Structure formats: structure tokens, C-alpha cells
């Protein structure tokens, strides 16, 4: 049964009139949209998920396109509170205050200085309008400071009194810092993605699942922060994810997704040398041991996220299973 009370606006902007072309946002947005509508993910009906992307040599989308998508969601409101609103943005951005990002529209330039959406304006609208119980904002954009910019709030008016909507907003980077994109791999594909978007995707697709089969708000954050940092460092960059959580009835242990199995990675170990080998799990319990001949393999062995050890009489290797890859081959010796 899909989560028909959940809605999303997902924006990915690669193309700008006066700013450098980005390579990741459209793919990142589509991937997030895919997670939202997948039964194992957000499980939204496809119609509830509005994905808006830029096109080459066009000045669209503009604010009206975003607001129209939002309006279509609000128009579906029949009086029963919706459960969740997801907002995802990947593109160029500006840091305005510690809690306000300006989300640049494709026509942004020194002339159209204010062609930026206010992250806080949109969050405030969602919270104040009280259509939703929970709001999740994921913003993968730079936050370099810029004065004299007046970011745009939604053109939709608040029609209800302030309610009790919980909200989580995760910024890809700290105020006054950049958010990067680069070649990343999820084990099977190599592509250009935003570091934050990649970490978010990995986390939501299984890497942040805890032992109870849940991806909690805290668990997602605890996964995304170091993973983003790790991806950035691999490209000689530095990026620190920040977030603000406004508790309106749920807490940080609330599952964003429940009932998920921790993803098992099928590990195959090939031994270069022969001898007695031992494979241990994260708490040093033996998973498999025995004598192997050179060139012999073990596996595939299904393993959940964690650190594992392979020991021979000569050495010990540690293998990291990140909870994202479906298969992994490891050569030992």
C-alpha cells in the first residue's frame, strides 16, 4: 500500500545562464525521485512526486514552475492532514544566513540577483500552512555568502494557522562553504553526483538501515555526515553537512523508513595463497573457517553492513561492507 499521504517536490538544475554547468543535479534529483516512488523507499504514488529538472539553453524552471508543483499538491488537500512533504533541491546555491540557503534558479545572474528561492521561506510555508505532519528538506547546493540578495518565498499564501509540523532540513554544506560534486561509485556505476546527494542516496537505499530494519532520522544523519565528508575528501575537497531538526511531535529516532532488511552484500573471497583461513564478523564471531588451496574461493557469503576480518597464519585483512553494494569480490593474500 503506497504512502498516498506523502508528497514531494524534487528539483535538479544542471543548466544556468550565467553560472557554470553542473553535471550531477539532474541525475541526483531523478535518483531521489526514484527512491521516493520505489516500494522499498518512500513508496509515494508516482503522481505525488513532482520532479522538475532544467534543460540546456533554457531559463526554466522558474519559481512559478516550482510553486505550481507545490500548488498541485496543496489542491489535493481534502481536510485530512497529509503525512509527509519531501523537498529535494540540487543545483547552485547561495548562503544567506546560517539557516537560510538561496536556491538559484537557472536565470540567476548579477541582474537577476534575486532569482533564488528561500529555503527557509519554503520550509516556513510548509510548516505554517499545517498541511503536513512532517517535512523533509534536502538541499545539495553551495552556501557561499552573498549580500543584497532577497530570496523568494513561495508565491502561495499561508491559508492556515501555524500547526505542529515536524521538520528536518539537511544542508549539504555549512554556511559560507561550498558543496561539491564529482565522480563517485556505488560499486556498480561510476558517475558524477553531488557528494551529499550520493551519501543521501546510499543511506536511504540501505546503508543507513539499523539492526531493527529502520532508517531513523538520526541514523540517516549519522550516515550522511561522514559519508559526504569521505566522498569530498576523496576529491581533495572538504564538505561538512549540517542540519536543523524541529521537533513537532516526532523525535530523531523516528523511522523515515521501517521494515527494511539490512542489505546483504554477497561477498566472494578469493585466496591467492593456501592455508587455514578464518572469516569473522564485527563482534569477532567466526562466520567461516577452514583450509583453502591457492586460487580457491569462498562465497558468495551474504553479509550485512559492518567490518569483517579475514585471517591467515601470516596476516589479517579487514573488509568493509558498506550496506550499498550488492556484490563484492575480495582478493586475499
Amino acid at each position, binding site marked *: 500500500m503506497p504512502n498516498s499521504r506523502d508528497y514531494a517536490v524534487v528539483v535538479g538544475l544542471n543548466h544556468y545562464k550565467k553560472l557554470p554547468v553542473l553535471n550531477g543535479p539532474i541525475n541526483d534529483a531523478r535518483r531521489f525521485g526514484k527512491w521516493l516512488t520505489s516500494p522499498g523507499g518512500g513508496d509515494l504514488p508516482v503522481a505525488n512526486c513532482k520532479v522538475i529538472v532544467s534543460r540546456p539553453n533554457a531559463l526554466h524552471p522558474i519559481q512559478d514552475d516550482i510553486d505550481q508543483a507545490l500548488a498541485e499538491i496543496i489542491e489535493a488537500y481534502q481536510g485530512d492532514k497529509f503525512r509527509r512533504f519531501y523537498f529535494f533541491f540540487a543545483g*547552485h546555491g547561495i548562503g544567506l544566513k546560517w539557516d537560510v540557503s538561496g536556491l538559484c534558479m537557472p536565470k540567476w545572474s548579477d541582474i537577476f540577483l534575486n532569482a533564488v528561492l528561500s529555503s527557509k521561506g519554503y520550509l516556513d510555508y510548509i510548516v505554517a500552512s499545517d498541511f503536513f505532519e512532517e517535512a523533509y528538506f534536502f538541499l545539495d547546493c553551495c552556501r557561499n*555568502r552573498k549580500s543584497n540578495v532577497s530570496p523568494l518565498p513561495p508565491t502561495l499564501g499561508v491559508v492556515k494557522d501555524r500547526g505542529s509540523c515536524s521538520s528536518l532540513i539537511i544542508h549539504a554544506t555549512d554556511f559560507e562553504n561550498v558543496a561539491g560534486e564529482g565522480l563517485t561509485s556505488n560499486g556498480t556505476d561510476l558517475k558524477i553526483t553531488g557528494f551529499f546527494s550520493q551519501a543521501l542516496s546510499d543511506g536511504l537505499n540501505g546503508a543507513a538501515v539499523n539492526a531493527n530494519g529502520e532508517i531513523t532520522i538520526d541514523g540517516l544523519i549519522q550516515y550522511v555526515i561522514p559519508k559526504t565528508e569521505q566522498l569530498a575528501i576523496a576529491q581533495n575537497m572538504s564538505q561538512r553537512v549540517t542540519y536543523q531538526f524541529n521537533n513537532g511531535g516526532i523525535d530523531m529516532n523516528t523511522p523515515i523508513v521501517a521494515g527494511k532488511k539490512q542489505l546483504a552484500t554477497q561477498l566472494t573471497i578469493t585466496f591467492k595463497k593456501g592455508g587455514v583461513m578464518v572469516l569473522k564478523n564485527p563482534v*569477532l564471531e567466526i562466520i567461516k573457517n577452514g583450509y583453502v588451496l591457492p586460487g580457491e574461493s569462498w562465497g558468495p557469503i551474504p553479509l550485512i553492513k559492518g567490518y569483517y576480518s579475514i585471517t591467515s597464519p601470516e596476516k589479517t585483512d579487514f573488509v568493509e561492507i558498506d550496506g550499498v553494494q550488492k556484490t563484492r569480490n575480495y582478493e586475499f593474500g
Partner: protein
Amino acid sequence: MNSDKKEYRLSVKSTGIMSELAYLTIMNGFMEVIDQNYAVLEKTLPEGIYKVTLKLNEQVLERMIMLNQDVDEEIPTPEIYSSVVSQGFTSSHEDYSRNAVAISKQATVVLNKNKKGTGSIFIFFRYPDNSDLSRESSKGESLGKGFSLLDADRKLLCRLEGNEVKEDLNAGWIGFNAYVEPGGYYLYYAGRDKEQLAREIPLTVYKGWQLQLFCTSLNGPQFPSLKIMVSSVKEGFSVDDADNYIIDGILQKMHNGIYFMPKSTFLSLINNKWQQPVKGLLAAYIYYLNKDETEYELPHDTIDRLSELLGKDAPDIKALKILRASHDHTAIPEVRMDRPCLFLAGMKAAISKAIEFPEKHIILENSIVEDIVDKLYTDMVWTSYLPISEPKTNEETLEADTTYKGAFLKNIIPEINLHASFGKTMAFDNENFGFDLPLGSGSSSGSDFGGGTGRGRPESKRGKPKVERPEILNSTLAESILYFVDRSFDNMSKIEGVRSGNIEEGLSVNGLSKALNVTQNMVQNTINEIVRDKENIVSYGNQAKKSELNKVFSMENIDKLNDIY
């Protein structure tokens, strides 16, 4: 999991240069964070696999631990790269260090033949590394190109070139040292191209102390690498001063928004009675900016002590008083900022409180501080900004140097706000909707302050057959104010930021100041300028193509400015 698991002690310690600043994390076998701290961690944990990470200066080292017995793990800190040419840094080639030491002890230029200053400014720029690749890509360009030292009035003292410096183009370094009187100075950089804009860095020299600036440079200065240290004039730069490593690391963390100072460093500063000015300032800034609990308390008389040392009018002292008030939740002090701070954090604190409490007049009206409010760069811990004008010279005019003029301009997202200063030498690019290379002779007056906010504009060109583009049209502050006006007052409550101003009775200077992060005086001056130039704007609008004039500069909107109170 087996609850009867044995438990063992896991002790992790960082060693080597900057080990006090290394951030350690222990994760269990399921990738959950168990504990984090600087320098040392000690835990008793169930048997299992653990991962320990050490983070320092954006580098991460990892160690896997098989905890089936007590483990003492020591992790040496990684190689550290810094613009400071201390011995322990990986990037410090011996040639750089040796020459830096020599130059720091002997002036390369005499600025005042009659009086040897009691302070000193020592500058050392060099390639990121001493490699053939750097030499090839530098194309023999002097690392001092475009740099000048200005006095407190922004008058040119000397350029960093020729006989004023010592340099080795092959090895890739340049050194400058001048004895100067205590007081304010500016390091001015003329810029290079659209990607490397002009920049000015305010400096303060204290009696008996040498201000030491280190920066890497290759095809232009890499400003984020700039480190400013202090040593006694007598001693000059020391390649093995242990404090340099720790200060470098603290500055690096500050650059990344992490305000941390090891207790041992803090205590040594206290024992030193804050005698080392920049270190004292740094400690105070770190303390007041840090929002987490610290292991130490800053003595209440710290700012007074620093004030005795640096003078009560020192900009950073004033900024620290503001930060202390915020930290202690006390009343904002009566201070007037008339010169920029050395530390960007001080400038930000002053600007923020000046906007929040306009009645306090924290930023002196029409001062250089007000002029740079919207021109600050934020890519390093030191205050720097797009210069408000070219430096003054004895002849009041610098030679035209068209190589650099375009460097004041930028079309992509800058860290600073571009107000299109130097209107006289800039042209509006109709095709690209931006500001492009200058057209003029480049001989704008050095005293032509504040083009961006509309003050000090040149004589208008009224009466000419064809109306020239009024300078105010290049001001994004003017455009932003009119943008608010254009959206009509009814919609103001929806606009971010104005919400915090008083909008019930219409649009106010106060509300605009808060919305735009500039002072009330800047808003008022810009409004005055627009109104004063209305005739020219309208005339220009009548003859210009649509694309040449933002529609917010309409007569209707300009007339509405009279309703702003």
C-alpha cells in the same frame, strides 16, 4: 550478539605535529560512532572489530583495531601542508625556510629614512611546492605582481617588486620586510583577471612585534592559504617555533568553522600573560565563537589585558567586546568600528550587531568599515574585501594598468557582493547582462570612495546630448531596494528578512537594512542617490534598450522611495 563478551581497554592517542588538534573517532564493527575527542581517547569496549579515524586539516587516517586484548594505539599525524615555511610542514622546502628566516631579520626596503619603525611587516610568498611543474606553470611571473603596501590612509607606501623585495623566480619565492611604526596598514592586491579579483587586507602592527604573512602563490596568490603570525621584531621568523604549528592548525580549523583550542595551548597563553598579540586575539576569538562547552574559562580581564597591549581603539578589541557581550548575554557595548578587524569573525560580529541594533551605531557612518560591509570576501579567516578604490599615491593617481582593471569584476557567484565599484572605469555588457572589462582610462581618483553605495560619485554628465549610464544603475544595493519597492508593500511580509523588520507601516530603512544585511546608513545613502539621480535614470531609461536597464528602476518605483521611512 553475545552479551557475555569480554571487554578490553582501547586507548588511542595522536602523536606528532599538531597532535593536540587531531580529532579521533572510534566506530564499532557495525559502523556506529562510539566516542570522539581531540588527541586522546580511552574506552573499555566489548571484544570486536573497531575502526579509529584521525582527522586533521582535511586529511583522514584510518586504523582497524581487532580488540581481543587491551590495545594502545598511537597514530602519527599526517603530513601537513601550510603556507608557513616551518620545518615540520611537508611543503616547507629548505630553500624557502632559510630565505624566510634571513629576510625576516633584515629589511628589504626602508620606508622612512628618518625613523626606523618599532614594528615590522614581513611577507613571504612562495610556490605551493618547489617543483619543476610549478616553475613551468608560473612562466617566470613575480609572486609580488599586483601587490602594494598602503598606510592607514590607504596611501601607497611601496609595491612588492623590484628593489623593494628579494625574490628568486626560479625557486619560486619572494620576501619583503619593512620596519614600520605601530598602527594600521593595508596589503593591496590589484587583481589579475575575472577569476582573481582585487583584494585588500587590513593589517595592524604592534610595537615590538613583527607581523608575518605567508601565502602560497602560483599564477596568482592563493589567498585561502594566507597565514598571519606574529613574532618579536628582534627574533624574526623561526622555522622551529613549536607555537607556529599549533597556531597554523587552529587557524585551519577556524577556517572550517571549528573553534577549538587545546587546553595546553590556552594555558600557555595565559601563563604568557597574553603578551603575544595575535595569539591572544586568536584565543579570545576562539573562546567567544565556540558554542560548545570548553575545558577552560577565559579570564574575565582578558580583553582588558589585550586592550592594554593593543590599545583600546584596536578594531579587534572592539569586535571582541561585541562577541563577549553576545557570549555572556550582556548589553552590547558602546563601540564605534572605524577600521576593519584583522579577523573576519570580528567584522562579521560587528556587522551583525550593527544591523540588529542600529541605534548603537556600531559601525561608524561613512567609514571604510561601512564601505566594505557588502564587499567582504569570506574565503579565509582574515578580513579582506574588494577594495573600495585604487590606492592613493602622492600624485593621487596610479598609472593606468589595464592588465588589472578587469579583475575587479566577476560574473559568477562571488563570495562577496559585487557593487560594481569604480563606475568610471566599468562598462555594462549588454549582451551578457553583467559587468565586463572597463572602458575608461583607469584614472579614477583614489579618494572616490563608495561607488557601490552611491556616495562619492563623479560629476554627473547632465546636459550631454546622450545620457550616459548613471553609476547608481550598477549598484546591486540600489537594485535590491527597488526590488522590494517593486513588489509592493502588501507583499513585503512574505519576503525573507523583512519579516524581522517593522513592516506593518510600510517599508522602512531599518527593515531593508536587516533584509539586505547592510547598515541603515548604506540603505539611506543609496535611496538618496537614486532619488538624486532620478532624472538621469529616467532619461537613460528612455534611450536605453530594455535589456540595459532593470525594470525595477522605474519612475514609479523611484517615487515610492519617498514613502520609505
